[in-house]
């Protein structure tokens, strides 16, 4: 019997008992739908995390002041003021092979005023390197450069949220004067919208100004200390090299002995990414286990129905054998039925799963990713479950004695 004929025969047999076929499929339908929905939602979540990580900046390292112990009393991290602009300049100057850009950052909060509107936001005092490190393009205008930093020029770049709060939509923004605390500033650029950070903060609620403008004019300090540095490595492979070299350079510059604890700390975004990835991987493993179990349960459902079907159709098997059906023809027929049940169930489950994940995505604001390899894999797994589930019943059918099968009532 050829393949097309056996598929047709199997379809006919399944159609004759629609309700039973449907019930047999149900397990696989639910299994595949659940797998599809959970996997695509999981992948969506993973993509969202990755996207948020990415929005922090490319190949990012953060250098923060560390804790120091004075007379045996340790301060908390960030309590010291021992990172300087010179440190930043030295890293940029000496570690060119691994470091792409260094942005020293000092932050302050400030009330800003334009016309009759005002808003309180965070001001980042930094250099032009900041935009490069954070991989943050401008929507309009131009960034400030070294001269503006050197001269503490009264210029600023506005985040999207700040623009929305201060300006009437459609009115010109570039070139306008706003007041930051008491300092009048010219808007030279608007930052592209970046959205929420990993922690859920609005990254667009920010003003970026030259470092010296913020420190000298807004904070009013003559010190050279830097709140933190954001550094981007040349490539993702070089993040750990950069980290090691920065550590060595800063230890040397801060004259730390071999045994001394560092008075700064370096945070590596890759580590955070790894942690996030690990947790999503754990979830993925869990989902796979659930998927495997539900496919097994679905397979058992099919095996059960097939066993009943073989018993019920013993006489039919006898007839088929009498008219020339070989054992393997019978085996193949029942196996085809089981695989068809599983794959049709898989198909329905797939459609259902896609529907559910789209609905969940729309409802929960997840990005839903439907990956073709996962769909294919799930379908193959369903088909495989059909083969495994159908094999024993089919084998039993194929081994029936034709005489006894014909006599079966």
């Amino acid at each position, binding site marked *: *019997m*050829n393949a097309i*004929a056996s598929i047709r*025969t199997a379809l*006919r047999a399944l159609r*004759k008992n629609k309700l039973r076929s449907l019930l047999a499929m149900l397990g696989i339908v639910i299994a595949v739908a659940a797998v599809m929905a959970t996997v695509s939602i999981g992948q969506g979540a993973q993509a969202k995390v990755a996207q948020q990580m990415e929005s922090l900046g490319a190949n990012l390292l953060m250098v923060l002041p560390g804790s120091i112990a004075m007379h045996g009393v340790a301060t908390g991290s960030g309590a010291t003021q021992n990172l300087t602009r010179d440190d930043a300049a030295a890293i940029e100057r000496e570690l060119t092979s691994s470091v792409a850009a260094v942005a020293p950052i000092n932050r302050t909060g400030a009330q800003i005023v334009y016309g009759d509107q005002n808003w309180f936001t965070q001001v980042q005092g930094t250099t032009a390197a900041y935009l490069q490190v954070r991989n943050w393009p401008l929507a309009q205008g131009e960034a400030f450069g070294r001269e503006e930093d050197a001269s503490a020029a009264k210029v600023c770049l506005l985040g999207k949220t700040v623009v929305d709060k201060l300006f009437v939509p459609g009115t010109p923004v570039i070139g306008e004067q706003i007041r930051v605390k008491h300092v009048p500033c010219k808007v030279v650029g608007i930052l592209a919208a970046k959205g929420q950070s990993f922690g859920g903060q609005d990254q667009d609620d920010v003003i970026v100004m030259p470092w010296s403008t913020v420190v000298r004019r807004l904070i009013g300090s003559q010190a050279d200390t830097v709140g933190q540095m954001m550094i981007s490595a040349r490539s993702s492979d070089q993040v750990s090299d950069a980290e090691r070299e920065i550590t060595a350079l800063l230890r040397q510059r801060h004259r730390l002995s071999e045994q001394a604890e560092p008075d700064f700390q370096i945070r590596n975004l890759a580590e955070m990414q790894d942690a996030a990835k690990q947790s999503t991987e754990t979830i993925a493993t869990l989902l796979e286990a659930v998927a495997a179990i539900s496919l097994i349960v679905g397979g058992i459902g099919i095996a059960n129905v097939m066993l009943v079907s073989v018993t019920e159709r013993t*006489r*039919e098997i*006898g*007839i*088929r*054998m*009498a*008219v*020339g*059906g*070989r*054992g*393997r*023809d019978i085996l193949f027929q029942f196996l085809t039925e089981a695989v068809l049940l599983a794959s049709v169930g898989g198909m329905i489950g797939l459609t259902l799963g896609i529907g559910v994940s789209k609905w969940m995505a729309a409802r929960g604001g997840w990005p839903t990713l439907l990956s073709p390899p996962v769909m294919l894999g799930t379908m193959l797994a369903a088909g495989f479950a059909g083969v495994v589930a159908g094999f024993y019943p089919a084998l039993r059918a194929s081994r029936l004695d*034709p*005489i006894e099968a*014909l006599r079966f009532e």
Partner: protein
Amino acid sequence: METRNLEKVYRMGDVEVRALRGVSLTIAAGDFVAVMGASGSGKSTFMNLIGCLDRPTRGSYRMAGRDVGKLSRDQLARVRGEQIGFVFQGFNLLPRTNALENVELPLLYQGIGSKERHRRAAEALERVGLGDRLDHTPAQLSGGQQQRVAIARALVNRPTLLLADEPTGNLDSRTSVEVMGIFQELNEQGLTVLLVTHEPDIAEHARRVVTFKDGLLLSDLTPPRRRLAREELQEQTA
């Protein structure tokens, strides 16, 4: 077709049942043989062996010069598919499957394409007078019509041997005679027919009547007055 000292032993629990105790019989091509005997006489067992549904415990069974008693299960299935047509007492049609598809069934296992299958199945049904009932399911047909579908199914693979196991057991007498008429007609066209029955008047339609008793051949006779279904039917209508 030739059997020599054919024996079949079944084991039922601890008891050995010797269903056939050495049967030697030769059936020439084109013959029409009726096998008679009480139940338990071994006639059904003999029929199963002749039909290649089972293998003998001892003895040989040669069919067209070939020793079929020693074939594997798959080889037996092939012989059944290519050389033998079965007609059963209970018709044994697939339920909820129309006449055409029922008749196509043997061809399905010979790898014949669907167009050719349809053509040959329709032709076989035509031959038994059911050309206008192709899409009827068994439930929509009378007993006689169902048996004719079964005969069409037995003929569709162009067998050399037609085996009928109590084909008239579930039919009224007139329909029985009609069915015997079909067999006689087929036999006249050269088909070898082996008919198992326990009704003497049905057996008298054959050219030769063999009787079994206790697993042995009791008699092998030619009916003194062979019944011809055609004439019987004419008499009945007259």
